[in-house]
């Protein structure tokens, strides 16, 4: 009995401390904050979120050093979005609905036929010319080696050769498309559900059923490398800051979008800041000397979808009929090449 009583008291102390971890800092930094809170007092980021904007990751080369579009350009873009949206709803295909090549696609996966994307409405147009805000030219600061690798992998993507299951990219293997784009990309829509519980923020990314259970209870980094690294979160005012290290790179070939490639030297810092009830400013700072000459930062406005939005089961590996078919095709190709030698 005394033991049991002691356990209950310990639980109380821990529970009480966990209920108000952010009170001090939040009142210091934003005394008039009206950001929604969870029942236990953390800023509330819950809901289903998705990037619905048109801003590309990198500034298109034709825009040079222009950080903003003109009013006229924004109006034209808006008109285009309206037209493409109407065409999508009418079931049209191809360029009319904004289908782009892999290289041009601002959203990974938009190279697919557009019916995979549920753009039931026009995307949000902005005057910004790139999600990347640093470096100021809005371009990824690739090392020379990474740039070569990007060219090689872009040439291979969707082309092959596919000699074994290690040759398709990690998405096609139903593993993941990586953490860097998880909150705002996805071949089938890029929906993310954030669920909070005391001490944890969990992000469920629909594609590949990627899941990150991020502790925000003050525990340190662990010493285990994982595909999604080792995330540690903390609240700074109303902003969630997630620091992730300890990534692995077991990808056999260079990813089609090589900037999403994790390497062991990747250090990712994310900031989640709700700026109104339906918009979150999501900021990523990527530091990885293996791939980039300097850290870079992108600011991504993501939207909260209606409260009844669900994310659904993504049984990718369970139904990966594409993999054996791709490999059988690759084998026939290989045999043909060999016999012609």
């Amino acid at each position: 009995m005394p033991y049991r009583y002691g356990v209950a008291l310990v639980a109380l102390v821990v529970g009480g401390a966990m209920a108000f971890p952010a009170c001090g800092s939040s009142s210091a930094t934003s005394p008039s904050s009206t950001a929604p809170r969870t029942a236990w007092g953390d800023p509330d980021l819950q809901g289903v979120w998705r990037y619905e904007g048109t801003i590309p990751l990198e500034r298109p080369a034709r825009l040079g050093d222009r950080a903003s579009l003109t009013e006229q350009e924004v109006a034209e873009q808006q008109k285009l979005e309206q037209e493409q949206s109407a065409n999508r709803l009418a079931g049209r295909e191809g360029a009319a609905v904004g289908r782009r090549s892999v290289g041009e696609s601002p959203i990974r996966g938009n190279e697919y036929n557009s019916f995979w994307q549920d753009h039931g409405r026009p995307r949000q147009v902005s005057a910004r010319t790139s999600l990347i805000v640093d470096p100021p030219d809005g371009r990824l600061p690739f090392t020379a080696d990474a740039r070569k690798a990007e060219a090689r992998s872009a040439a291979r993507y969707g082309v092959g050769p596919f000699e074994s299951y290690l040759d398709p990219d990690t998405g096609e293997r139903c593993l993941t498309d990586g953490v860097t784009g998880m909150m705002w990309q996805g071949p089938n829509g890029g929906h993310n559900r954030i669920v909070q519980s005391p001490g944890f923020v969990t992000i469920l990314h629909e594609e590949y059923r990627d899941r990150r259970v991020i502790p925000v209870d003050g525990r340190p980094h662990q010493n285990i490398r994982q595909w999604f690294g080792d995330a540690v979160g903390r609240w700074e005012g109303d902003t969630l800051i997630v620091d992730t290290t300890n990534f692995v790179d077991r990808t056999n070939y260079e990813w089609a979008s090589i900037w999403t490639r994790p390497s062991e030297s990747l250090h990712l810092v994310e900031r989640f800041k709700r700026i109104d009830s339906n918009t979150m400013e999501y900021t990523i700072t990527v530091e990885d000397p293996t791939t980039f000459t300097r850290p870079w930062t992108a600011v991504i406005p993501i939207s909260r979808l209606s409260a009844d939005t669900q994310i659904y089961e993504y049984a990718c590996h369970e139904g990966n009929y594409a993999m054996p078919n791709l490999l059988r095709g690759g084998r026939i190709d290989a045999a043909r090449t060999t016999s012609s030698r």
Partner: protein
Amino acid sequence: MRAGPRVAVTMALVAALSACTSSTGQPASYVAPRTADGAPDLNGVWQTLNTANYDIQAHPARPALAIMPAAPRTGTPGLVRATHTDLPVPALRPLGAVGGVPAGAGVVEGDEIPYQPWALAKKKENAEHWLERDPEIKCFMPGVPRATYMPYPFQILQSTNAILMAYEFAGTTRTIHLEKVGNSPSPSWMGWSRGRWDGDTLVVDTTDFNEETWFDRAGNFHSDALKVVERYTPVSPYHLMYEATIEDPKVFTRPWKIRMPLYRRFDADARIREYKCVEFVEQLMYGQVGAIDPATGTVNR
């Protein structure tokens, strides 16, 4: 929000003072601590300590998951009456004692699974073809209730309107909807789960399953008519009693129940980690299909 700890104090004191132990060893009237919004608090990392994933029914120890009878003995006369044991199939023999199956009392109420006759025959056939058929081997999502008693932890992450069951195996997550939610658009591996509180017990109704998952490594199976009602009842700060009622009129003659305790993992830094087993099974599933098998580096002919 600020009332939360006060409620918790009251509840914990009630729990501490009222806890007594029944003859079965279970506290008879444990009251769980409350979350900040007043629900029973089931947050934590949980795991079973049993052999249900090998076989939900009672089973003796055996040398391997896939066994074959020993050949009749033809050696020295006089020794032929030595009792021979079944042997692991050749693929599993190098594992030795590591590959053995521990005995278990089973978790099925009454130890009987009320199969229809055709279904009992299919269960036996599944067991004989375990190595080719068990979805666990292929890293497929384990379904419900199997996800609960696989030998991996899972975490209950409890929010106000939804509860997540985040399983380590194959990175599978169930969302338990506490609010009114529409119907599932299609059958799925982990089903469509709606939760409610019955006193301190979380009751989860799960429907809309496909027919791909199993209950264990013994070939116990179900159809797409499966319905599972789970009950998670806190019985101490470190234990939940887990009970699941299985109903599937296509396969069973009546509903049946399983029951087992879940244990709180309170190791330092207890948490679920990645077990992305897809990459562990690619060679098994696709190694022979492509032009080159990475396991050998050789060209497949």
